[in-house]
């Protein structure tokens, strides 16, 4: 386990370095941020001053070197646009995104797996068919459209829920969270539903497919023959065996929902980091883009690590770090 962790750590540092390098080159290739930041009425002297102030007059490799030196100390640069440390901007907004992503995943898992199981156990019933049809709609309807419809129905027409923003927050372990207040939940409901719809559909279909396959296996027939209750057969034997692909997808989707919930955040004006990323890209605010992507890569690495550990818990045949041996 220790060797596994250390090897993972080494790989992660390498991935982070490559990531930073690629982003630096990429943003540099798009264009000069000064053109977008400086007031058009400013004269040439002002442009030169601004360029020097942001360190953009130095050659690209030197800028990258400066960035690496700072990164070793934990300083990922200051935003060109806001002049606050990039990492501070991101960490300010990350709790909101994590909260939204968490709520969406909880909704998707809590509804998706049971619904998928039902659809798998009774595939030809009206309920089973209905769930599958619903899941098709779920991943076909664009997030953008679903969000706007939710706002039109629940805010404009019915007036039950607020149309945008995050609700009141309370501090939990030093981090502001809004799901502990009623106002916070009202604000969280629609964005979380909007984000959850796609994941929900994915999980339903995945669970159904896994269930259908598992039910045909010998061990299930044997368990039934043994006289185990239906609940135990499904809840313990079937579920545990289909969870590995599901956990993989959940891990991937959790990462992408944290990183790229941009559309939902834009429509609901949710003060999260996804929106920060897209705005920074539009403004060529390179320090924020680089810092953000490094944070996201780190999150993905951590999630993948956790998923691997969960595999070994779910499937006793899996040994961490060893080459896959046929059993």
């Amino acid at each position, binding site marked *: 386990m220790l060797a596994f962790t250390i090897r993972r750590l080494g790989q992660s540092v390498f991935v982070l370095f490559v990531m930073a390098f690629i982003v630096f080159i990429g943003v540099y290739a798009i264009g000069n941020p000064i053109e977008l930041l400086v007031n058009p009425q400013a004269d040439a002297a*002002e442009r030169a001053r601004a360029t020097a102030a942001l360190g953009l007059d130095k050659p690209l490799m030197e800028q990258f070197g400066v960035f690496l030196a700072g990164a070793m100390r934990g300083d990922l640069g200051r935003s*060109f646009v806001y002049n606050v440390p990039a990492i501070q901007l991101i960490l300010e907004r990350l709790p909101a995104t994590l909260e939204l992503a968490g709520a969406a995943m909880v909704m998707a898992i809590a509804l998706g797996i049971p619904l998928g199981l039902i659809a798998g156990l009774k595939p030809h019933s009206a309920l089973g068919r209905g769930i599958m049809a*619903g899941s098709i709609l779920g991943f076909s309807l664009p997030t953008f459209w679903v969000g706007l*419809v939710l*706002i*039109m129905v629940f805010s404009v027409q019915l007036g039950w829920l607020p149309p945008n923003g995050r609700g009141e927050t309370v501090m939990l372990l030093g981090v502001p969270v809004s799901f502990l207040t009623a106002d916070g939940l009202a604000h969280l409901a629609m964005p979380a539903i909007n984000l959850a719809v796609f994941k929900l559909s994915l999980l339903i279909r995945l669970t159904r497919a896994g269930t259908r396959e598992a039910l045909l296996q010998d061990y299930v027939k044997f368990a039934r023959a043994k006289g185990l209750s239906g609940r135990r057969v499904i809840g313990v034997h079937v579920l545990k065996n289909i969870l590995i692909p599901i956990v993989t997808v959940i891990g991937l989707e959790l990462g992408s929902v944290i990183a790229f919930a941009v559309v939902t955040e834009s*429509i609901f004006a949710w003060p999260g980091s996804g929106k920060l990323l897209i*705005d920074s890209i539009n403004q060529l605010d390179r320090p924020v883009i680089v810092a953000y992507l490094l944070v996201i890569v780190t999150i993905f690495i951590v999630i993948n690590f956790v998923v691997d550990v969960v595999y070994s818990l779910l499937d006793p045949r899996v040994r961490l770090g060893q080459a896959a041996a046929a059993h």
Partner: protein
Amino acid sequence: MLRMLRIAAAALVAAAVPFAAAKEREVSIGLQSPVTSMDPHYHNLSPNNSLLLHVYEPLILRDANMKLKPGLAASWRAVDDLTWEFKLRRNVKFHDGTPFTAEDVVATYKRVPNVPNSPSSYATFTKPIVETKVVDPYTIIFKTAQPHVLLPSDLAAVYIVPKALAEKATTEDFNSGKAAIGTGPYRLAEFVHNSRIVLKANYGYWGGEEPWDKLTFKILSNSAARVAALLSGDVQMIETVPTSDIAKISADKSFSVADKVSNRVIYVHLHQWNDKSAPFVTSKDGKPLDKNPFRDSRVRKALSMAINRDAIAERIMEKRAIPAGQLLADSFYGTSRKLKPAKYDPEGAKKLLAEAGYPNGFAITIHGPNNRYINDDKIAQAIAQFYSRAGITAKVETMPSAVYFNRATAGEFGYMLLGWGTESGEQGSAMRSLLATRDPDKGMGVNNRGRYSNPAFDKQLTDALFTMDEKKREGMLQQAAETVMNDTGLIPIHFEVSTWATAKGYRYTPRTDQYTLAMDLKPVGR
């Protein structure tokens, strides 16, 4: 699922129901662009300037038509060509109770060029002042190196902070509220980056009582979300109503739309860097032409005549645009009554092109941004279609502004769709930035991406810019405008009309500089 779809369809036609009744003296306003800082000298950006005007004030304010009016300066005059005397307003207090005096002005102007890491500072405005003399706590003398007619206009952009803070506070101090002390009608309560800004009334404001106790500005960049926020009652006013929603909101009795022509002109710069060629300009079969057609004023004029500005204003902009014949609308200083928008005349354009030696026209590519100006990509496409009737084959390529402006400035494009908002409210500085022969060291033609150069026009313009007499200068500016527009230095298309929508019980008095000010929002019928 199906039931929800049916409800949604009905909702789209239904009237709005307010989500929660706003408290009497509290109002929420939806803004389109984020405010990047509460430091008034950090980033010269229009949304910043608009919001910070609630908290801080300059010596000179602008009214709804961008005309100068007294702010923290009660009066000012030019003593001679190089000397200005400003008399300051008495009995004004900052939010922390300290009195406002000339020392605060001096300290503020000293700070302006020295704000660290500023992506766009206000130094251009304070640079002309080479010497400052404090005669008494309420009188200041400024000296300039050259006659600088626009000094009052420039100083209207620099907001005054107390001396102690000007000397020591950092941008972070302003953002956190510790140093956000000004003389304005509101004080900062909360600033959350790219999310919301909360302001509370300054009850001791020298200009009298405001109707609002608390203001909440929400940044709602997504247009649909902004409209939904208004319709659901989450905010009571929004700026920049999307053109597609204007008709529906105006028709709804619970809302009203206020609009006003802005200082922003949408125009086209043509690549005139040299006589030989222009990028993306070829003959119809793709071969290069033997000279640059944009250098011929007849070709430029034909390209201007071939655009149907009325159709663009009517159909694409939903009437929220005014066809343009120069760089600012008629109500602004320095505009000529003789300059009218070019009449739509595709046949006349074809004749002019034949005269210039292009009887079969030629091919161009129209380049433009797609996320910067209102309906910018649609305007580019419309122009391409008009040109096909005048015998010019036009392709269209639009791209995000992050990519577009860099490449346009580098001279990569031949036909560039652009916009320009004149912050000084008079046509002289617009002509200077966009049409004067480019000389960055002298500050001429800094944004002349087409490199248009007309020495006769340059002379008329520079003479006008250094004439201190207002009436004389106006005549000279009008003459310069006529010279350059009759030569079609650039092709003006239209002036954007800014829109604001308010809920019932609120009325907004619109402004030409596109600022959204709570001071112009008044309760109605309560």
